[in-house]
């Protein structure tokens, strides 16, 4: 049961949030020029790393803002949360 620091509201219980998967996937422009593989890659294929993961959360029961988190998927430790558009925080030196 995480405590998640909403970049707007502060520390809140995990149950106020929902996760929306891998962050920083930009929707391609000129979609019709993409191959089926490129389109499929954008829609379906994910990094799913065992370790540090940048992902999107939304403060569903709070301010309803989307934001990003940097979390270790093995220890579930959240190293940073940051607003959409903010620079990506660096990976921690001691991730586990």
């Amino acid at each position: 049961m995480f405590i998640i620091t909403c970049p707007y509201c502060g520390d809140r219980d995990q149950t106020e949030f929902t996760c929306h998967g891998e962050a920083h996937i930009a929707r391609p422009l000129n979609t019709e020029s993409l191959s089926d593989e490129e389109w499929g890659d954008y829609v379906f294929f994910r990094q799913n790393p065992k370790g540090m993961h940048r992902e999107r959360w939304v403060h569903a029961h709070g301010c309803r803002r989307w934001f990003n988190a940097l979390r270790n998927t093995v220890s579930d430790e959240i190293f940073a949360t940051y607003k959409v558009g903010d620079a990506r925080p660096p990976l921690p030196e001691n991730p586990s």
Partner: protein
Amino acid sequence: MSQSCRLDSGGRIDRSKVLQFTFDGKSYTGFKGDTLASALLANGVKLLGRSFKYHRPRGLIAAGSEEPNALMQLENGAYTEPNTRATCIELYDGLVANSQNRWPSLGFDVGAINSSVARFLPAGFYYKTFMWPASMWMTYEKFIRKAAGLGVSPTEPDPDVYHSRYATCDVLVIGGGPAGLAAATAAAGSDARVMLIDEQSEFGGSTLGAAAVPEVASWVAASTAALAANNNVTLLPRTTVTGYFDYNYLTAVEKVTDHLGPGNGGTAPRQRFWKIRASRVVIAAGSIERPLVFADNDRPGIMLANAVSTYINRFGVLPDQNIVVFTNNDSAYRTAVDAARSGATVTMVDTRAEVSAELTRVLQQHKVKQFTGHAISSVQGTKGVKAVRIMPLSADGKSLQGQAWEINCGIVANSGGWTPSVHMFSQSGGKLQYDNSIEGFVPDPAKAKRINPGFSVGACNGSFATGDCIAEGAQAGRQAVEACGFVASDVAMPELTDALNDTGMGGIAALWLVPTVHPVGEGPAKHFHDFQNDVTAADIHLAAREGYLSVEHLKRYTTTGMATDQGKTSNLNALAIMAEIRGAQIPEVGTTTFRPPFTPLTFGAIGGQESKDLFLQERHTPMHQCHVQNNAVFEDVGDWKRPWYFPHSGEDMHAAVQRETLSVRTDVGMLDASTLGKIDIQGADAAEFLEMIYTNNWKKLAIGNCRYGLMLNEHGMIFDDGVTTRLGEHHYHMTTTSGGAARVLNWLEEWLQTEWPEKQVYCTSVTEQWAVVALNGPKARDLLATLSDIDLSKEAFPFMSMREGQVAGIPARVYRISFTGELAYEINVPARFGRQLWETLQEAGKPFNLCHYGTEAMHVLRAEKGFIIVGQDTDGTVTPADMDMDWIVSKTKPDFLGKRSFLRSDTARDDRQQLVGLLTTDPTVVLMEGAHIVQEIKDAPPMTTIGRVTSSYMSPNLERSFALGMLKNGLARKGETVQLSLMNGDAVEALVTDPVFIDKEGVRVRG
């Protein structure tokens, strides 16, 4: 022989309060302060149950929550509770307990035959047999299932109520023994919020069961009183911390009224479930004594040494006049002294050859006979210990040889050492390390999980002496509270003068398996380590022999540690025996992962609060009470309660729906459409945004006009639909399906916030702001005209437009949109006026034969027009083309969500299933929704399906049945006849038609 084993004085019981109870139908008495276990023991009752597999007679082993044997069926009827530990039940007047897993009686149990054929039932025997003939397995299984299980489930609903709550604190202390009390005391004092939780009814932990040491007792009392007086401290006795989850989230269950007996709690909940978030956690959970594994060590009367002490000291019960103490460490000497002081004849059997002179002197002082370097070789007595035989133990501990002695006794108090209760630390994700000096696993603070900061102190950290516990606790409390930014308090130390009570465990010499004269598993006796699941040392040998070597395989193959005590007394013994077999060190074999809960906890406590009317939130519209008064039958649509139909007296559902459906097409009907999702969209880029979200064009929609739209996901599949109206230059009002409202708003926000944050678009849910009445039918205009100042002429107010004005004096937005194909108006008023609008329309509608209609009639009406319901006619695998809705997909827009997916080969196929109408040859046959169209009827399945029925009704307007469905290549097959195969084997023929059955030209809706 009432309370024949009760001592004349002593203990923490209240002898003035005599309590009656029954066990297996027989009446007994005990005192307030007793547990069921201590009261039974006071009455000389030692046979308390039968074991799981072999049905061996069993008695008490422990005095706490680690008890594996004494499981009771507590109470009868709706209040009955199986598998309840007698050691954890506080005695109350009128308590009814029964033994379990025996038939016909505890004394004579037919299942005990398993014990005599035990040789044929080694670990995992069922994997090797019951396979022939294959058809018999289900029969064998019935018997296996009946024989297994422990107590019986109640068969009536639980009459009790449960409370659950959250709590936040700075320092949570688990365990109210000396270490925990010291930690809480250090942490309390400044403004820090401290919680102290203990399983027992009073604080003091292990000191409650130890011989009275006045200094310690008064320290406990003073510490507890000071904590109780502090407003920032929450003391929770009778509460067990059950789980330790990430970010210091812990769960605990408080027994609020269990100790009062069933039905005696008044309005208070039976149990309270605590969900606690703590900045720092101090684990002071103590330790659990582990049994020695020796021949027939499961006989009733063979108990843990400290349990015997606890019964003597805390409950004033001396379980027998003749007691043998059997140990491999110093701690059991306290039991020998406790028993001797209480008047018992005590014999000490110590497996160690060398014992400190001081201990020997103490024993002599209390006239306890001592054998060192000896071990119990056998036990006499089946339903209770009568005597033990002891023999000298070889120096390597592997064999018994020499002179045997037989000692008469009714109790064997044994101690194989102490296992720190590392459950909580392990649950928190911390790793353990093996401490050879205490022969047990202790927390490795270097391998604690960073997100779960805390401390383990006292016996659960391998420190057994009272003084060490208090010092460690105080220091951890200090560090914990300082980490939270508070100032710690000083902790007074008691004067500890009684050396025997403060030596802790003392010089253990591990002896994991006490040998007998036979090789393990080959003599008549059994060496149990897991009592409840009947797992013996021989089973571990077998598992090793068959290659089930990893600790997880060992557990799963032999079931050791899997019983309701989760191996509290058995895990380390099992690991150690396996280590000996493998010639490995214990840590190499591994340790098991401790999973929550620490002790089993009631389902009601976890989930009971959000039950009945709090089970899944129920949503009401502003007109809900009107519908109740109008006798509506409700349908659950998502979380909403929606009127399904409004039966008149004597009408069944079919009759009501037929009447409502007909009435809308002939006169006028009204539907509560308030549940539709509504989203207010504003901002300079709103139109551009809608262009991406919907498949069709939005830029040219005039202010005041409405347009239907389909939303696709990026896979190109329909996921919602609705009508959106342009209210102003940069202002739109979007409607969604009732169930899809939240999903759609999330979808919009997700794109806006994460992909196009630069766009000026603002979405606000206004679903509940508006009460919506859909007025449908040829007389809708005439009725509305009597109540509204809006010009309703079709020129002034055409189809697919919105006008503002008053309806029944209420400011309203009226949308001329229709889900029935009739002339229709959706009247939106602020929710506060919803009821008023409904009632006014109801009155005003009488001359027009206005009827109320519910969702079922709405479904029939829309299906007659071929209007789809997303989620019923579509299913998440359907494109607009599949729905024959290419007309709504823009060919000119460069992009919209999902568009690219149309180009994929499977999505672009033209022989996909497509929406069609279906008319059965027999007009009275209403197809089942979900019935399938098959390529060709065969005598029996399998048959190839080429489509299915998605919506199917009897239509009073068509005076026949009709259906919508999906059919492979359906658009090209109109006019063909297809076959449907029904579940009952019947075949039905249907004509493939256009899905619009009424008013194909759309005259009515524009009328």
